[in-house]
């Protein structure tokens, strides 16, 4: 049903805004609630940046609005303790691997589930839904046994990528978007003698390009922010993603730094910035209607 809407919710808004005609008071009240909410959501991010720039931690209310004395010292401090660039690169490699796996194999699977009749399709679809209910964390012990003990993939990028290699929510999204394309498109292409791979590549894929971007954004969140799994399978700090190095810093080394909170918050800013920047830049592709058809069955 989400296709009926325009991709950006903001353009669909004028109709939705009809109810408060003549009810100015309620309208202003909801605006007040919304902006108050936004303040609560954004303040910790603002405070993260301010805290990372303070030479001495000032936790008073006034300290949140400094008038001067800001410094980048905390950034060089955390960079001395942990290799920020190296950790960022590791996060990027792991996330890139997951996105690559999801895009290549997820699109193929999504296309097959939506457009091809083959034996076992129903079963595959059911398992795909089940996977989204049973969280990965609950299977952490057997997956650890398999990947670390049986295959010896501890301290390797492959070991960190493998459990997330194809994001099932993204596969579901791909299926939904291929399903929404008109059948005539496919029968016409098949009549012309085009093979399925050719149809997928030059007919279907160009039509769902924005959806692919949505799926990539959604896939990005998992591996970039994941802590538990890379934490379990890596001992070498050279291979750890930033979420793990920062967490280790918080729980082990923080006591030794001159301004531990400043250094921690500086690390937090470096970890948060790429994700925030990405989702602000591509916010058009991460809206209710884009996701709505994906999360619903």
């Amino acid at each position, binding site marked *: 049903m*989400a296709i009926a*809407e325009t991709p950006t*919710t*903001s353009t669909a808004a004028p109709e*939705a*805004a009809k*109810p408060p005609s003549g009810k100015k008071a309620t309208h202003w009240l909801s*605006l007040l609630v*919304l*902006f108050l909410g936004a303040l609560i*959501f954004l303040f910790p991010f603002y405070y*993260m940046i301010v805290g990372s720039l303070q030479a001495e931690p000032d*936790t008073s*209310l006034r300290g949140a609005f400094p008038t001067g004395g800001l410094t980048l010292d905390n950034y060089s401090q955390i960079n001395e303790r942990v290799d920020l660039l190296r950790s960022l690169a590791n996060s990027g490699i792991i996330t890139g691997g997951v996105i690559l796996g999801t895009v290549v194999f997820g699109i193929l*699977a999504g296309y*097959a*589930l939506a457009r091809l009749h*083959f*034996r076992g*399709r*129903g*079963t*595959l*679809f059911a*398992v795909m839904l089940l996977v989204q*209910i*049973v969280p990965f*964390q*609950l*299977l952490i*012990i*057997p*997956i*650890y046994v398999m990947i670390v*003990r049986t295959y*010896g993939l501890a301290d390797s990028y492959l070991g960190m990528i493998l*459990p997330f290699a*194809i994001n*099932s929510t993204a*596969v579901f999204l791909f299926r939904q978007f291929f399903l929404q394309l008109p059948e005539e498109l496919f029968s016409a292409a098949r009549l012309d003698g085009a093979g399925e791979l050719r149809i997928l590549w030059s007919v279907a894929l160009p039509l769902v390009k924005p959806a692919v971007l949505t799926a990539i954004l959604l896939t990005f969140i998992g591996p970039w*922010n994941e802590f*538990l799994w890379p934490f*379990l399978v890596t001992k070498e700090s050279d291979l750890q993603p930033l*979420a793990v190095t*920062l967490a280790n810093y*918080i*729980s082990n080394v923080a006591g030794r730094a001159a301004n531990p909170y400043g250094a*921690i918050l500086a690390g*937090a800013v470096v*970890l948060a910035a790429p*994700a*925030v920047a*990405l*989702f*602000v830049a591509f916010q058009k592709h991460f809206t*209710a209607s884009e*996701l*709505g058809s994906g*999360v*619903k069955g």
Partner: protein
Amino acid sequence: MSETTTAEKAGPAASRRPAARLGSQPLGILFAAPYAVFLAAVFAYPLGLAVWISFHDYFFAAPGAQVDRPFVGFENYTAVLSDPEVRKSFLNVFEFLVINVPLTVVLSLVLAAALNTVVRARTFLRVSYYIPYVTASVALVAVWLFLFKEDGMVNQIMGSFGPNPSWLVNSTLAMPVIAVFVTWKQLGFFILLYLAALQNVQKELYEAASIDGAGWFRSFRNVTVPGVRPATTLVVILATITGANLFTEPYLLTNGGGPNGASTSPVFVMYQKGIEQGTPDVAAAIGVILVVIVLIIALISRRILEDD
């Protein structure tokens, strides 16, 4: 799931020809194969392995070593269920869910409904709400540690009204703080879900309610809430799953499930018992119990949804 029936119907009727037995477009098997193999390797097989480990005396051995791992029946399960640490962690998650789920449902629905009536600043507001959702827990925990520490800003503002002992080292408050943290972090995603669901509520219903003289609250209660009920079921299921997953917050925010185990979670105990203490059999039993609980909750919620 209509494709299940069509796939099965096509099966027996055409089973004479080997090619047709694979379906009318067997190429689909090839397309879906990598994903199917992936699901088998990181979902189906581990699920089976978890059950197998939980019924055996399983321990980590040197790679390649031949070791005897005898069948022990329900021994690991009785060990788990009689362990006060494990019971505490389940109670903690229960407390987490009691706070987190209602808070999530109410706040995300109210904010989504309000957001739905706004035209200007809509993009700014929407993005503000989902920013915590896309940010790493580890980064957000860092700020909350700073905000809620003994002499942090929250206690500075509250002055003598601040709790003693402070938030994160207070055994009554540690779990509620984690529950509020997770609510705040996840809320943006649920707002998007409700926003999508609100597009399906018929505008005429609001008009009818307004003709009947219903105010904002009555039309919210009588039109909006019933109109998004399927989404509410989904929100409840997903929020519960998030609760069953809890690890990073007790590990970092309350320094390892502290104080005195007041904020441990089952996944945290699994990590302690399975990896740190080297009893993966007991940890696997905790995992199996959690999977069963999550599936039961999902089934019950679906039943409620289908009753409509």
